[in-house]
């Protein structure tokens, strides 16, 4: 038997070391992104691909807004900032958007008859040639104009109208080679920093963030305000917050355990014995999770910190019992209890892996591996290292155990008080019924937001200054080919234009505004031909064109004026606003995005959705709404799983405890229901993270009940249960103080839940010790 333990312990130790070494060589980033928590849900592959593309576009850029009271200091600041950012070469580079506007000015000139600005095309469709004629004359006599005045090549100033009709994505103008924001009162300029790696990359964060922070500090001393927008800031903040909260929660938990154990055992050795399996459990959990997943999410780590609370149960029970018996006897005595505890907890957490929610899957993997590793360490390591406990303390109960046990004995037993018991059960049933009917679920995306409000506000300020809409909704237009996509877009834009007309929509940006379909370009050329037919004579007369000049002017239109092809357009700077729009997707389709401007009311959203629903080439996508819908879906999934887990485990435990199963199940059930009721009372509703926390409450509460039942009221079991509850409370008490909403919602359930279970458990114990 002893040899088996030694061999097993050796094999297990080697396994732990190897897996940790493996994981150590892999650099895994901490992820705080909302998107990472979202399941790969049932979306059209095309829609999914485009969403990823949109996210990546925002992800790899940092927008820097520099504002000062006067232009000169703003410009000086810009050059200082640029040179400081220059030190980041290789990690991140400043991009110059400026060149984009310059090359386009004349590149489109050959296509002036095919492109036509929207108002001009509309006028010509309505055969309002006179108005274009007058507008051209007025431009000719105007002291300044956009685009060259050339009465032969472009007598009707169509090119000038194209230039003036072009809209930019961002509200900037070019000023001495810099981008100046036009939508802000103070002189403000924009710099765009492009990251070479994704913003969750820790080395990138470590290199870029200090530079950005020092720039901000240095500039604020000079009265220049610098604001940033970009995923990098949120990712870095999230990582920093994660580090801080892990260290406070983890440290708080461990410190609490250390103090309590030293107080109880009055020796250091039991402390190390208790912590060893917990540490092995955490190490293995971290190692396996980081090997399994590309990025470990903040939420997994936070949950993992709480895992300490469950894992410590096993070693606590073992060490407490080791004061009475030798290692092998303890194993024999505790094995069934420990196994039941492990199986039920792993079942409860492992069930989360069945949801397609990546965050929950990570938690499942982390918890299951952590618990199994801690459990194995208890069974394999502790018998070897706790041998001295018994020799010194044979037949001696720990004083704390006796004290606690005396307190417990004073508790009345519920099976002696049938009236109280029925009242209690009725109260719990009533609470759960009212929860079922009246508690409002909360599925807002803000639950997932880990960034502090100040950072979000800064981000929003920059985005608003840029003129980017705050709404997350957009439309996707698809087609079997580039031309089909553009034609579909043009067709759908008629509906959007109608919505603009009736005031439902503020505006939109579509790629077909920049490059119309070939069909539309040909129609435009025909319109221009008609304009020339109707008005070229009057024009020539008005400004005195010779017959020859008139003939040349006419030739430009009549002799196959060129159309703008997607290939040519893609080489122009204006195409930068629509990256990759003419690259087919994995489905073979082409797709473009129509960006919506302004605030969308409920009504406009409905109208847009209705409009999109009429056309199978159009998809209305709202990521924020999707996230909320997903949260709602998985809230119900987790709720269902909780019911199923309770059911399965009740059946499982029924085989062992028969009718006494209520003594194990009632405390976690009652604790969970009351904790949930408290949360609903405090926060006005509940959410998925409250429910995930209920799983943990269930796991720990179940362990408690099983051990108490297995030990039949042993003083040392009650000590172990109390100690592990206390340590878990310390860990989760700190979670409830977390600034991260997800962690807060977690802690707010676990704190009262565990406390209640601990208080309730003694009531449920059997009054007749001889009963099995």
């Amino acid at each position, binding site marked *: 038997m002893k040899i088996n333990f030694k061999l097993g312990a050796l094999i297990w130790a080697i396994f732990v070391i190897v897996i940790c070494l493996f994981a150590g060589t892999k650099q895994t980033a901490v992820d705080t992104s909302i998107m990472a928590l979202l399941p790969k849900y049932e979306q059209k592959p095309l829609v999914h691909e485009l969403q990823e593309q949109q996210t990546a576009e925002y992800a790899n850029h940092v927008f820097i807004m520099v504002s000062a009271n006067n*232009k000169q200091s703003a410009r000086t600041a810009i050059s200082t900032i640029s040179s400081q950012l220059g030190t980041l070469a290789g990690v991140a580079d400043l991009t110059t958007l400026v060149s984009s*506007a*310059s090359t386009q*000015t*004349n590149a489109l000139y050959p296509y002036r008859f095919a492109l036509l600005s929207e*108002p001009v095309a509309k006028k010509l469709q309505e055969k309002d040639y006179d*108005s274009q004629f*007058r*507008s051209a*004359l*007025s431009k*000719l*006599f*105007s*002291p*300044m*104009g*956009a*685009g*060259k*005045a*050339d*009465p*032969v*090549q472009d007598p009707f100033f169509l090119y000038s109208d194209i*230039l*003036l*009709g*072009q*809209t*930019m994505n961002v*509200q*900037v*103008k*070019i*000023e*001495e*080679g810099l981008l100046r924001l*036009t*939508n802000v009162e103070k002189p403000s300029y924009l710099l765009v920093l492009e990251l070479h790696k994704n913003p969750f990359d820790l080395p990138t964060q470590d290199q870029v963030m200090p530079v950005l922070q020092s720039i901000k500090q240095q500039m604020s001393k000079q009265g220049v305000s610098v604001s940033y927008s970009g995923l990098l800031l949120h990712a870095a903040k999230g990582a920093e917050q994660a580090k801080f909260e892990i260290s406070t929660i983890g440290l708080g938990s461990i410190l609490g355990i250390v103090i309590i154990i030293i107080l109880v055992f009055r020796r250091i050795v039991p402390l190390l014995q208790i912590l060893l399996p917990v540490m092995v459990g955490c190490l293995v959990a971290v190692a396996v999770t980081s090997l399994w997943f590309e990025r470990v999410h903040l939420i997994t780590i936070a949950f993992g910190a709480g895992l300490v609370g469950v894992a410590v149960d096993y070693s606590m029970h073992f060490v407490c019992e080791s004061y009475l018996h030798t290692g092998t006897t303890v194993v024999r005595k505790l094995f069934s209890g420990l196994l039941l505890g492990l199986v039920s907890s792993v079942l409860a957490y492992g069930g989360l892996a069945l949801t397609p929610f990546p965050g929950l899957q990570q938690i499942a993997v982390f918890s299951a591996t952590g618990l199994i590793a801690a459990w194995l360490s208890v069974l394999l390591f502790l018998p070897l290292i706790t041998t001295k406990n018994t020799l010194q303390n044979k037949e001696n109960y720990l004083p704390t155990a006796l004290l606690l046990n005396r307190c417990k004995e004073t508790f009345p037993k519920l099976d002696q008080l049938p009236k109280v018991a029925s009242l209690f059960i009725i109260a719990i049933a009533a609470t759960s019924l009212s929860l079922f009917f009246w508690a409002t679920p909360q599925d807002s995306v803000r639950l997932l937001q880990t960034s502090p409000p100040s950072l979000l506000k800064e981000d929003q300020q920059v985005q608003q200054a840029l*003129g980017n809409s705050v709404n997350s909704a957009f439309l996707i237009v698809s087609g079997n080919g580039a031309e089909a996509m553009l034609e579909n877009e043009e067709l759908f834009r008629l509906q959007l234009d109608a919505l603009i007309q009736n005031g439902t929509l503020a505006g939109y940006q579509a790629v077909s505004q920049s490059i119309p379909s070939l069909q539309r370009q040909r129609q435009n050329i025909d319109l221009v031909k008609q304009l020339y037919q109707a008005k070229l004579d009057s024009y020539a007369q*008005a*400004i*005195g*064109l010779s017959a020859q*000049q008139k003939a040349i002017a006419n030739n430009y239109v009549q002799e196959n004026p060129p159309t703008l092809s997607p290939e040519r357009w893609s080489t122009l700077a204006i195409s930068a606003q629509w990256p990759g729009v003419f690259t087919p997707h994995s489905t073979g389709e082409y797709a473009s995005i129509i960006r919506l401007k302004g605030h969308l009311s409920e009504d406009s959203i409905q109208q847009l959705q209705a409009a999109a629903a009429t056309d199978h080439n159009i998809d209305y996508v709202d990521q924020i709404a999707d996230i909320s819908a997903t949260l709602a879906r998985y809230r119900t999934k987790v709720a269902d799983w909780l019911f199923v887990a309770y059911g399965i485990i009740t059946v499982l435990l029924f085989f062992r405890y028969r009718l006494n199963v209520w003594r194990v199940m009632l405390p976690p059930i009652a604790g969970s229901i009351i904790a949930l009721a408290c949360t609903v009372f405090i926060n006005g509703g509940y959410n998925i993270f409250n429910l995930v926390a209920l799983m943990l409450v269930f796991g720990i509460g179940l362990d408690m009940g099983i051990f108490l039942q297995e030990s039949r009221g042993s003083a040392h079991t009650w000590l172990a249960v109390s100690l592990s509850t206390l340590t878990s409370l310390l860990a989760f008490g700190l979670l409830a103080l977390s600034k991260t909403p997800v962690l807060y919602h977690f802690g707010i359930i676990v704190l009262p839940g565990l406390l209640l279970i601990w208080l309730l458990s003694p009531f449920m114990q059997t009054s007749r010790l001889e009963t099995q």
Partner: protein
Amino acid sequence: MKKTFLSIILFTLSLSVFANDLDKLKAVTTTPEKLTGIFAQTKFLAQLDTSIKSTGAFNYIRDTKIVWHTLTPIDSTLELTPKTILNYQDGVQVNKLDSNTNSIVAVFSDIFFGVMTAQWQVLEEYFSVSAEVSEGHWKATLIPIDKNIGGFISKVILEGDKYLKQVTLYEPEGNLTHIEFDQLQQK
């Protein structure tokens, strides 16, 4: 080393000349709160090798609005505010452009405001300014700093005494617009 030193000296020298020019200009010229007057414009169209002439009236309220009313040979009004450009013909609005959505409109309106009201601070943003000032008469030559503006305007010459009296705009393709102001009145 010597070369660098020399270029630094030259650079600082040119800067000071530059600053002096502007200071002198700012001292001589005035931009009244409100001004009205008439103008005569000759536009040389390089493509046709002819000039077209127009006349009209203008008025402005500083930093707020410029109304440029061409009376002959056609009736057309251009109304600029720092944010918009409106075009009327025979009293009917035919065009409206907004600088919020189009960067060209923003630059266009800035330059127009700057030139017509001789606002040197605004013009400095887009042009390098050199000036000759003698006995109350001045002449400023503006060369665009930015390539983008260079696409529309290659040079601007402003001349005047107390007020701006003449503007000549050179376009890259050889077109040239010469404007003379008269009957200027502060109102």
